[in-house]
């Protein structure tokens, strides 16, 4: 069994090697006030096999705020997904903004599969976008819609359009309007400063939500995207907090003797899985958030931690070293016997399943290096997805198409996004210090 897994994993690496000539985007956090830290995207290499799409600059009427153009943001979003290769505007032969101005022959000549055109109109404090997406080969409009936002939220408007375009072409909802939560760590003069931050998925509009000179760990999104649960050592020992983002209100929900760690929300948002050691050693518990009542879900002298619900919301995955080293286990219900999932190497930890129950992603050690790997839960095939070597904290995008994780780049921890099958990648390094523990928010309707 173990050998079989090893062979399969090797195949996985080869596959990634073939997909290696994709593209790389670098995102740099600008220095200065960290509370206003921005991440700048630099595209250093283009994708060859991605779908060519032309996002024509939108026409503008009325006073449209200067700054990043909506069409530029849409282009960057589509590039970031790794599945599209937007045409640079300077190569366009015409700049239509309405459907009847689109000449399919021009776009065919440029090798484009899709064309997006649009108009922005300001009315009072609102900006409205009318946009249309065309399939060049079929000479057909496949999407026509309007959307509006306040004058100050054109980034949200742009991400919304990206989501719709992505869905119209791939059939899968886009995840560009979602958020990232992560923790940054800066050491100035030896004094650490941890900051829990929330940004757009492209790293823009980052805002600090919590600052502490003691560790902050394991941010986890509530299913409604309105709250974060996390571990903070701010009182000198680890405790679990629930933080409502709109108000900034925080509640300390677990502060038992010993470990209080690894919170994970249930799909209905009513309970948390967490790791406590109040009864002797690290075990997984379920806490009803309203009543704070606890139910113990594991019982073993070994370490049981890093729980996460599976897609059914009935069973859960967790890490246990009951076999001698950390491995991924699954319980199909709260009271079922745990079943071991990973066999491919001596160290497999921190499971994160996708939303449809097909794959579980985790940290996998091989030849002294730590990678992100996934196991297909139907076939049990294991694939190593990353080629970097100090990889941690995988988090799957809510549409299952992308994966963000933390890795090392010249000594610092950075975030990297890859296609969930191991393809294209871009990274988000901080200019100083570490960025770690990314958590991808759910899609909020």
């Amino acid at each position, binding site marked *: 069994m173990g050998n079989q897994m090893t062979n399969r994993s090797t195949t996985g690496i080869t596959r990634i090697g073939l997909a290696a000539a994709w593209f790389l985007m670098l995102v740099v956090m600008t220095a200065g006030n960290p509370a206003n830290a921005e991440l700048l995207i630099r595209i250093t290499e283009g994708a060859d096999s991605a779908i060519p799409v032309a996002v024509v600059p939108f026409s503008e009427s009325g006073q449209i705020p200067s700054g990043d153009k909506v069409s530029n943001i849409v282009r960057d979003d589509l590039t970031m997904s790794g599945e599209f290769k937007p045409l640079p505007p300077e190569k366009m032969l015409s700049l239509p903004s309405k459907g009847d101005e689109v000449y399919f022959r021009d776009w065919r000549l440029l090798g484009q599969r899709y064309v997006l055109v649009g108009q922005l109109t300001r009315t009072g404090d609102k900006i409205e976008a009318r946009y249309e997406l065309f399939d060049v080969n079929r000479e057909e409009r496949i999407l026509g819609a309007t959307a509006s936002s306040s004058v100050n939220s054109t980034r949200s408007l742009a991400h919304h359009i990206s989501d719709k375009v992505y869905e119209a072409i791939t059939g899968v909802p886009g995840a560009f309007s979602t958020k990232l939560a992560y923790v940054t760590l800066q050491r100035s003069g030896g004094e650490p400063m941890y900051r829990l931050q929330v940004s757009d998925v492209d790293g823009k509009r980052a805002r600090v939500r919590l600052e502490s000179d003691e560790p902050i760990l394991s941010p986890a999104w509530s299913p409604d995207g309105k709250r974060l649960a996390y571990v903070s050592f701010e009182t000198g020992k680890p405790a679990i907090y629930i933080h409502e983002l709109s108000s900034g209100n925080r509640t300390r929900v677990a502060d038992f003797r010993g470990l209080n760690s690894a919170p994970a929300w249930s799909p209905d948002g009513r309970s948390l899985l967490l790791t406590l050691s109040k009864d002797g050693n690290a075990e997984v518990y379920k806490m009803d958030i309203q009543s704070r009542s606890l139910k113990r879900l594991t019982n073993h002298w070994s370490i049981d*931690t890093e729980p996460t619900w599976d897609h059914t919301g009935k069973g859960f995955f967790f890490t246990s070293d009951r076999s001698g080293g950390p491995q991924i286990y699954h319980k199909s219900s709260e009271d079922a016997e745990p079943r071991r999932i990973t066999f491919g190497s001596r160290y497999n930890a921190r499971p994160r399943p996708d939303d449809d129950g097909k794959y579980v992603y985790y940290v996998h050690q091989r030849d002294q290096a730590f990678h992100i790997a996934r196991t297909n839960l139907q076939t049990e095939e294991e694939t190593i997805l990353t080629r970097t070597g100090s990889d941690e904290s995988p988090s799957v995008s809510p549409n299952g198409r992308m994966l963000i994780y933390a890795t090392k780049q010249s000594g610092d921890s950075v975030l990297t996004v890859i296609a969930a099958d191991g393809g294209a990648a871009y990274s988000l390094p901080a200019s100083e210090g570490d960025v770690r523990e990314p958590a991808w928010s759910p899609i909020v309707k």
Partner: protein
Amino acid sequence: MNVSAHHKLFAMVMSLGLIAGCSSTGETTEDGAYGSDVSAVDQEGGSTVYGGDDDGGVSSSEMSEEQRREAEARAARAEEAAMREITTFYFDFDTSEIKADARDVLVAHARFLQANPGQNVRIEGHADERGTKEYNLALGERRANAIERFLIVNGASRGQTETISYGEEKPAVMGSSESAWAQNRRVELVFQ
């Protein structure tokens, strides 16, 4: 008995010196913040302190039996005090097994706690940066628990001890070398 205890202490100091020495044979360029590797370990709990009353072990034929016993006791106390200068204990990757050379020192700490019931100790568990943060939190706790159990078995009482794990969050040494990892997989005793 004195002599053999002295030997033990010497051997122990030497072996801790070896741990410190390890880092100078590895790739230690990342550890530049520290002037020398010995001081890096030293800062974390003084593993290379040779203190103690060296003259205490001297006996003389002119001494009375009582004097001789007192001198011996004083020497033993000095030795234990010297051992108690060591407050950091190291572990292998993904284990919480107390190393053999740490046992005498831990016994000295346990006896000291037993003799001083008002004294409390905070037992801080740590892991190196490899592996996942949450698993490392649990691993750091398991290391702290192992040390706590050892102290209690050897005379400390439960009310005197408190454990906390920082996982990989508070490395003693920055960097991603074998020597940095070895110095970060540790439990520290903080007397309060």
